């Protein structure tokens, strides 16, 4: 008897339909065979299915069982085919019909219960597009699949429960579409979870201002300063001033996390901007993504969020240069012999670095012990092309320890993250409105045509910019970046046009790491 159970295969962020065909033959030596390019995890599903069916109190049939995963030429991976295979076998021996227009998905435990399986959101999206109404997913993954409107999600606890459902003994209640987004939005505390409040960072007014501009326009930023000057603290406080994700962005981010299997059991849509801080020993594949079956890397996991690279010049050259394409295009294509996957990587780069190996170059009190050659060698580790792609460059001056203790009392007088965030959100709203008809969201993403359209410069401003670019030898790209930063500064003020003071401030953040030598 041949049974067809529909399921999916996730390739990157795309899904295709996979028919799990289960045949129980009466003739032939009893056995269990899976064909259709299964990987090791799919092949091992034989043992899980066998044990899970026995544990559910049903005798495993002594027949020749052949499972085909069609289309047969696409490699199948993961444990998600456990449930469709088990349902195929059970429907054959218990004589129930597998409902049409439904998808099955989930990993089985040996005791017959279903485990959280990665990719539930991708499947739900596919089901909606392809017109499947019912989804049978593990209970722990149900919230993830249930975030998509227009599909009925059945949370399945174990195999026995699902067979009872199909034998019409006891029904499983479908999960109602939850307005998860709305629910989570009110949960502000979790949403803006940052390690530090901007109020805790003492002094550093210029750096804080630069952070605010970066958050408002989605600009990349690099901080250069001595050890202990607060670079890391500033970066860690950044999530607290970032605007929340909107519905579309939230879905984009959750898709990537779903594909990476990083959504915890019971988890649903990701509503806060992600802050990723990989260590500098990270491998190129870990950072950029890849592998024989390409999986998303840190740059994609930081999509619509922040990628913080502490000790930027300690990162291997190869890793840094590989980030050029995502920085420019906002996505990256990973090509391997078997497949080609495109992952979005629209992140805000926040980098921090020391000015020299000893760290005290240009320090007001301490002496730098590095030779000029050492300094040059150290600074050269960050290549020009990368620096050119960073919009805001700031020097973080060290804070005096004595001043620090005096200021401790004044901490309450400083501006909290919340107040800064409100300004940032307002600036983002202006941008959203501006780019309504374009496919971009923030000032940092503007292409040259957008700059021409939205950032009309008065004559005196253009003159100022031209003079500055001559004096500081700005590249054509930096020239454009200055205009974008000026636009963001104007947006923060709510000003419709860029003025001279906006441009003058933007020019403070010009690329200048090489000027110090």
């Amino acid at each position: 008897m041949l049974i067809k159970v529909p399921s999916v295969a996730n390739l990157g962020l795309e899904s295709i339909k996979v028919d799990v065909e289960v045949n129980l033959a009466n003739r032939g030596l009893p056995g269990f065979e899976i064909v259709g390019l299964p990987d090791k995890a799919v092949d091992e599903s034989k043992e899980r299915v066998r044990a899970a069916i026995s544990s559910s109190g049903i005798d495993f049939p002594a027949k020749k069982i052949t499972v085909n995963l069609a289309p047969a030429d696409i490699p199948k991976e993961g444990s998600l085919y456990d449930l469709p295979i088990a349902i195929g076998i059970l429907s054959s021996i218990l004589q129930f019909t597998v409902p049409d227009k439904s998808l099955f998905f989930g990993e089985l435990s040996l005791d017959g219960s279903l485990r959280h399986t990665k990719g539930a959101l991708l499947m739900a999206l596919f089901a909606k597009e392809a017109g499947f109404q019912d989804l049978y997913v593990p209970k722990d993954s149900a919230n993830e699949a249930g975030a998509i409107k227009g599909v009925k999600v059945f949370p399945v606890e174990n195999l026995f429960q699902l067979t009872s459902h199909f034998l019409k003994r006891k029904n499983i209640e479908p999960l109602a579409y939850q307005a998860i987004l709305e629910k989570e939005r009110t949960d502000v505390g979790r949403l803006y979870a940052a390690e530090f409040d901007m109020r805790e960072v003492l002094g550093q007014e210029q750096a804080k201002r630069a952070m605010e501009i970066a958050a408002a326009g989605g600009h990349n930023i690099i901080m250069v300063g001595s050890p202990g000057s607060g670079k890391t603290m500033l970066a860690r406080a950044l999530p607290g001033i970032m605007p929340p994700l909107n519905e579309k962005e939230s879905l984009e981010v959750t898709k990537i996390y779903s594909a990476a299997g990083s959504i915890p059991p019971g988890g649903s849509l990701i509503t806060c901007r992600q802050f990723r801080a990989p260590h500098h020993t990270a491998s190129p594949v870990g950072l950029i993504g890849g592998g024989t079956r390409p999986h998303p890397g840190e740059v994609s996991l930081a999509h619509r969020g922040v990628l913080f690279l502490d000790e930027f010049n300690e990162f291997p050259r190869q890793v840094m240069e590989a980030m050029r394409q995502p920085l420019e295009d906002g996505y990256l294509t990973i090509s391997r012999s078997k497949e080609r996957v495109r992952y979005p990587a629209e992140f805000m780069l926040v980098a921090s670095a020391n000015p020299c190996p000893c760290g005290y170059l240009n320090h007001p009190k301490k002496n730098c012990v590095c030779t000029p050659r050492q300094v040059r060698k150290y600074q050269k580790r960050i290549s020009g092309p990368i620096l050119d792609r960073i919009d805001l460059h700031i020097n973080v001056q060290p804070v005096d320890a004595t001043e620090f203790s005096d200021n401790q009392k004044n901490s309450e007088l400083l501006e909290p993250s919340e107040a800064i965030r409100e300004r940032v959100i307002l600036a983002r709203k202006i941008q959203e409105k501006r780019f309504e008809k374009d496919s971009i969201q923030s000032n940092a993403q503007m292409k040259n045509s957008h700059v021409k359209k939205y950032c009309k410069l008065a004559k005196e401003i253009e003159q100022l910019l031209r003079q500055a670019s001559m004096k500081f030898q700005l590249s054509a790209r930096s020239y454009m970046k200055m205009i974008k930063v000026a636009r963001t500064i104007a947006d923060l003020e709510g000003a419709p046009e860029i003025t001279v003071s906006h441009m003058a401030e933007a020019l403070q953040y010009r690329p200048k790491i090489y000027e110090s030598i």
Partner: protein
Amino acid sequence: MGEEIAKDYLKRKGYKIIEQNYKTKYAEIDLVTKKGKELVFVEVRTKKGEDFGTPEETLDKRKLRKLWGNAKAYTAWKKWQGPYRVDAVCVVLRYDNMIERINHYENIV
């Protein structure tokens, strides 16, 4: 014990027994039979009770490959030109040595 049961069973099904426990230095074939024009090699598996697994389970890929090799060697040795196949007969006995079930699987490799 099991081989005798299998022999009787196959005889009743119209198989002509040619050899039993055919042995060479390398190979051992439980039963060589003939049904019509086809030479049938039969592997007999016997188990007393199924508490420790079924006889079918003991026929893994490696054993099946070996059976096929033995069959080929036999046909070459005897210069057999006609069709041939490999079957398995699985016998399960009760603890009092009565027959619980006999299953005959045709053409298993």
